[in-house]
């Protein structure tokens, strides 16, 4: 089971189901150690204006063997800007993957569904492997699947909030309706939440703050990797059904009494 249980996104195969964001780390060395400890094969990156003396992540990430880069469109306020960011990201990363994120309101960073949908339609036609960051909306998720997205990435809770899987019931609905991978992105804090998402049938989990803002990011990255693997294993094993009544696991035949 383990060998054939690959994550397939837009025809690309991955052994790891943990996707790591590379932001917010204390420095590049810690980030790279966390990526290695997580054993992840897909990481998100952002675009930034070149500026003298600021670390360029391109070279260090290129040295990590077997790593696929997924540039995001962070900073885009509408579909037009997101498409431009995606094209620029592809120029540098050489990767067809793009995480479409359009969140115009800095207060809650909730994704704009209309602009996101428009950007995804355009990018899917331009041969990108499109993974949109969306609110946990089953209708939008289905529309994005029909538009040619390779996966959908509903949020667990607000970006960087550490509030966990607030949208769990909606994510379950998305999974039940979806024939493309569903990846929980944003809001997770603890590895147990990642395991819960995987047990429910998520195909992968994307975390950044939960690792980068941990006291020990490298150990936390390894913890998330184990939680994601355990959750996936449990999903494949098939959870027992839930009931309201107790069902004894030991024989109740009376032999101690009279």
């Amino acid at each position: 089971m383990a060998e054939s249980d690959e994550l397939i996104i837009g025809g690309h195969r991955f052994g790891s189901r943990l996707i790591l964001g590379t932001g917010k780390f204390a420095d590049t060395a810690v980030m790279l150690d966390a990526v290695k400890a997580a054993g992840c094969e897909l990481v998100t990156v952002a675009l930034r204006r070149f500026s003298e003396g600021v670390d360029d992540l391109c070279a260090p990430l290129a040295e990590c063997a077997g790593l696929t880069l997924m540039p995001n469109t962070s900073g885009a306020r509408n579909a037009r800007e997101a498409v431009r960011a995606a094209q620029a990201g592809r120029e540098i990363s050489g990767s067809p993957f793009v995480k479409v994120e359009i969140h115009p309101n800095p207060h809650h960073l909730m994704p704009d569904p209309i602009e996101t949908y428009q950007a995804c339609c355009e990018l899917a036609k331009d041969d990108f492997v499109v993974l949109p960051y969306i609110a946990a909306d089953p209708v939008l998720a289905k529309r994005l699947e029909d538009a040619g997205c390779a996966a959908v990435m509903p949020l667990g809770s607000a970006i960087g909030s550490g509030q966990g899987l607030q949208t769990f019931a909606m994510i379950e609905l998305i999974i039940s309706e979806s024939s493309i991978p569903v990846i929980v992105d944003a809001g997770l804090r603890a590895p147990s939440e990642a395991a819960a998402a995987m047990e429910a049938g998520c195909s992968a989990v994307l975390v950044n703050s939960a690792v980068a803002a941990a006291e020990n990011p490298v150990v936390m990255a390894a913890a998330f990797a184990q939680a994601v693997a355990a959750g996936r294993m449990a999903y494949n094993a098939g959870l027992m059904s839930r009931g309201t009544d107790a069902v004894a696991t030991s024989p109740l035949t009376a032999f101690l009494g009279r």
Partner: protein
Amino acid sequence: MNIVLNGEHAEFPAGALLTEVVECTGLLPERVATIVNENVVPRAQRSVTELNDGDIVEILTLAGGG
């Protein structure tokens, strides 16, 4: 001629090519993306992209992000 490079005014000789602006950063050309007046200019076209006075040029690199 004056251009706006990453949000700041910069002076280049008239008819400068986009490749020359990229060279000024000292970064490898394959490690940056270039945008001129809101259009992404692919790497292969930088050497034939002549800049004009007032052009808005963005040179982007990869940074950490979620």
